[in-house]
């Protein structure tokens, strides 16, 4: 998002670090989806329609464990509820005169990393532009879709002879959650995180893994209501 280049290209360039990081994660999602028994088209459809990494891995786990459709959908939706504050936070930083005419398209690309990058650009004094948001979002989305497609076509069996690579890709999900957790960690949210984690462990041990996930999210979100 510099003044010397057309805003769309500047946004596309700014998306490069995100795109480079997304590709291997999307590739491992494609592999994981086909390994879980889904077709390449189904894996690609998940990336195209949901476009939220952690939710997509979770969708595989929920659907293959036989969780009911509504429980699965509710879990994924609850997980992404945090995205509702991204748009207003970004527009607040962009200023009152910033256009949001095409936000119905580019705002779909407001993932954690795209939001972080856009907010960082504004914090560094660059001017908000919808064209730049398109460039930033398209680079990240394109990389996510390409990585998924290649991983899905390579297939679940592609890594059979490479157990270490397979294990590394298998660790991608906990690593992603931990890194996301660190990125949003604040003193204020620490009790929320601890309560959610404890409720998950208790719910999983006492009832089932799916119940643990639901109880953890609910307990943590309710803990957030307590004024500190």
């Amino acid at each position, binding site marked *: 998002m510099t003044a010397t280049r057309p805003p769309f290209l500047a946004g596309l360039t700014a998306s490069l670090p995100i795109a480079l990081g997304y590709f291997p994660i999307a590739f491992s999602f494609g592999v994981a989806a086909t390994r879980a028994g889904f077709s390449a088209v189904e894996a690609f459809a998940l990336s195209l329609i949901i476009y939220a990494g952690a939710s997509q891995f979770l969708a595989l786990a929920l659907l293959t464990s036989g969780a009911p459709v509504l429980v699965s959908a509710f879990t994924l939706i609850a997980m992404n509820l945090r995205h509702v504050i991204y748009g207003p936070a970004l527009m607040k930083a962009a200023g009152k005169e910033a256009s949001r005419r095409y936000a119905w398209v580019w705002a779909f690309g407001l993932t954690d990393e795209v939001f972080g990058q856009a907010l960082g650009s504004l914090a560094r004094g660059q001017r908000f532009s919808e064209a730049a948001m398109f460039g930033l979002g398209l680079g990240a989305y394109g990389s996510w879709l390409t990585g998924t497609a290649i991983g899905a076509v390579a297939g679940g069996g592609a890594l059979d002879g490479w157990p270490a690579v397979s294990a590394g890709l298998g660790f991608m999900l906990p690593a992603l959650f931990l890194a996301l957790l660190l990125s949003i960690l604040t003193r204020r949210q620490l009790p929320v995180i601890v309560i959610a984690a404890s409720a998950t462990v208790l719910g999983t041990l006492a009832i089932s893994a799916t119940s643990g996930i639901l109880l*953890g999210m609910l307990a943590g979100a309710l803990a957030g209501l307590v004024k500190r």
Partner: protein
Amino acid sequence: MNWELLAVALMAGAANWAFRVLPTLARSDRLTSGGWLERFLAATGPAAISTLFVASIQPLVAPGIGPLLPVVAGTLAVLAVFAVSRSVVAATLAGAVVHGLFVWLAG
């Protein structure tokens, strides 16, 4: 096409679109004003991610499933790289690489 998968994807995708787009268009200051709604919504992210981290790491640390060392090494790599780079993507990739490396070394 697996129709259950498509139904879940469409519901989650529509919610994602609504969560990302509608507040941007509405530009509601209520969501960034520090009220109860903001506190609840702000807590859903950490709560969900904390829950999912625990849920995803539990099978890896369950006794008898695998050696603990690659999990510990991968976790430490995520913490270290995030502390240095502040990048979610770099920390995730480092965790995966170190975990895979330890599995390879353990042979």
